[in-house]
């Protein structure tokens, strides 16, 4: 297999002391942000992004993706020991993880969580290894209409499948696309929506917006809550680890099912949150002993953690193969790629082999190193929570400001970040989702270019989006997904009408 040879090459790129050191640093920083309340994957990656600006792209992405893995691992620690999900996708882990800790089985629960996270990611990385090159070589045949159709599919699936009120998703997305258009128009060179401001000439930088939306707003939200907490401390001994691992084969069905759900939901923009709940619920439904769930059953930890990690990892597949991120964090990594001068999309696999395979290899290596790291250092990380938030909050604010400034060396961006912080705070509280906004902002220009190029090609005829089987089916699928809630209701209405007739 060609993929395996390239993967080995990727490992060779990585196995230097410098890279391994960066990996460890990334993981530690990631676990740190995962454990801290009010900071998570997207925030962590966004805040720490400026650290990587001066590195070469491969080192940078290795460090950033390790921050991401670390944050995924870290979320489990607070859920189990403190009953506080560090991340939304860790909520399902608290159902059985915290009861286990209360029964004095914290070490067992943590081992289970870390191990299943590891398995989930591993399955997803294997999927990426073999599927991503295939998809990207297929996508090389895409022209502008096909690309626009894929972008449309991404946006429509957010509206149709998201849990939030539909009009709020639409608001968030159109706002993101509009802000992406501010500044100089790339085709005609004309200025748009700048209202004579020289600062707006540069446009609204995606990363500045993200740092404000996720970093600053999260601090404001965290301050609202009561920050007192009580939890169990735990150390993990080798004996516990081995005994949990010995039992692993018994749960292979759960692990496999959750990995599958996670990969599936990760690729479609739905996210890790839905995956973790679905993994948990299905494990419960298929269990012979449903009542024991929620009372400290180890399967209740395995199922959501595997699914959350599989989906968090699988979200990187469409990003690598097509340049379309499957989650908020993937969108930020994508923004990073552009800062380092890489053009995300199918060409990445052709033009930057070292980079892509280095990244994929780092996913394998990062997860192995991460597993060992968390298993050995849990007590230290649990005690991070002792650090008062009054000390952590201003440091996060400073890091955000450094990040926002460093991107374009503009003071205006610090103010912009502050503005986005307020917007993010208000939006979160009134239920306007931020993920579609992030995605729209990062994809906006490319979606518009694809649209205009296809329009120029066809002479302004919208039929170009149905001009061949491929683009036609993607566009149709996008429209079906957009109206999915309506279609779903219609179907269940029809089947309800038919059922009494059958009976």
């Amino acid at each position, binding site marked *: 297999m060609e993929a395996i040879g390239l993967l080995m090459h990727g490992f060779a790129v990585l196995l230097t002391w410098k890279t391994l050191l960066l990996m460890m640093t990334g993981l530690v920083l990631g676990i740190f942000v995962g454990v801290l309340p009010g900071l998570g994957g997207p925030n962590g990656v966004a805040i720490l992004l400026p650290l990587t600006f001066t590195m070469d792209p491969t080192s940078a992405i290795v460090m950033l993706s390790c921050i991401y893995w670390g944050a995924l691992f870290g979320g489990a620690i607070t859920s189990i020991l403190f009953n506080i999900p560090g991340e939304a996708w860790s909520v399902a882990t608290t159902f059985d993880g915290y009861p286990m800790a209360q029964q*004095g089985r914290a*070490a067992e629960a943590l081992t289970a969580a870390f191990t299943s996270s590891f398995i989930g990611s591993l399955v997803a990385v294997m999927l990426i290894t073999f599927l991503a090159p295939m998809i990207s070589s297929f996508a090389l045949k895409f022209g502008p209409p096909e690309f626009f159709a894929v972008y449309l599919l991404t946006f429509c699936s957010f509206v149709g499948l998201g849990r939030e009120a539909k009009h709020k998703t639409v608001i968030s997305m*159109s706002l993101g696309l509009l802000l992406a258009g501010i500044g100089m128009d790339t085709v*005609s060179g004309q200025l748009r929506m700048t209202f004579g401001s020289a600062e707006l000439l540069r446009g609204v930088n995606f990363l500045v917006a993200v740092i404000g939306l996720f970093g600053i707003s999260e601090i404001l939200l965290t301050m*609202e809550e009561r920050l007192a907490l009580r939890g169990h*401390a735990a150390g993990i001994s080798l004996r516990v680890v081995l005994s949990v691992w010995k039992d692993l084969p018994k749960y292979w069905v759960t692990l496999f099912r959750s990995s599958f759900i996670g990969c599936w939901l990760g690729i479609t923009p739905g996210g890790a949150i839905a995956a973790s709940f679905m993994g948990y619920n299905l494990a419960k439904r298929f269990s012979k002993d449903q009542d024991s769930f929620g009372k400290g059953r180890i399967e209740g930890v395995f199922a959501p953690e595997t699914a959350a990690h599989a989906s968090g990892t699988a979200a990187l597949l469409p990003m690598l193969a097509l340049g379309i991120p499957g989650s908020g964090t993937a969108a930020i990594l994508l923004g990073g790629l552009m800062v380092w001068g890489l053009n995300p999309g199918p060409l990445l696999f052709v033009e930057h082999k070292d980079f892509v395979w280095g990244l994929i290899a780092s996913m394998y290596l990062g997860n192995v190193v991460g597993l060992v790291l968390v298993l050995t250092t849990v007590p230290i990380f649990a005690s991070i929570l002792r650090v008062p938030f009054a000390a952590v909050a*201003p440091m996060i*604010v400073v890091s955000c400001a450094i990040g926002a*400034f460093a991107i374009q060396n503009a003071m205006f961006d610090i103010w912009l970040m502050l503005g986005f912080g307020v917007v993010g705070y208000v939006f979160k509280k009134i239920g306007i989702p931020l993920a579609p906004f992030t995605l729209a902002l990062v994809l906006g220009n490319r979606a518009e270019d694809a649209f205009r190029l296809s329009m120029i090609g066809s002479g302004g005829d919208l039929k170009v989006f149905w001009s061949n089987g491929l683009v036609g089916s993607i566009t149709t699928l996008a429209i079906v997904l957009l109206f999915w809630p309506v279609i779903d209701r219609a179907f269940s209405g029809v089947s309800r009408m038919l059922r009494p007739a059958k009976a």
Partner: protein
Amino acid sequence: MSNTDIEIVVEDPTAPEANSPQVVSVRVVDVVVSLLLLALAITLGLDNWRAGAGWESTGPQPGYFPFYLSIILGGASLYGLVAAFLSRTEATETFVTRAQLRRVMAVFVPTVLFCLATQFLGLYVASFLLISGFMRLVGKIALWKSLLTAFIFTAAMFVTFDVAFDVIMPKGPLEAALGR
């Protein structure tokens, strides 16, 4: 495990009281945000109309794509406005209580001051002031701990960004006096 009985306890003495009165309901904020978005959509829509939202011989004009987006944004905000007016649940939901608002302001106001200070004093001085001030005044942490933490953090940032990675931050009179 044997050591699970050791509990980690963190207190939060300045936590917002649970029974604090509400400042504003979710509905009011939702209506205001919808109106603002509507105004934004109209402003951007007009600007794009001016830039040209039609077709020319080479394809769509620069304002074409954003013009239709402004219409979508406007439509969705209008829908949101009506939905917020009609919603009964939102009227009873609290957007923020007085105690919560006080805490949010306790972090937001220093952040604004920090940004101002960054503009005039440079980032490193501003960050020292923010961290030490916030820890001391909001967190009620001992003065020497606050100053020490702020100094170590700021110095670490300076070494990481300015010395090691050459990422230049806004600087003020202090850095100039030190010759950096």
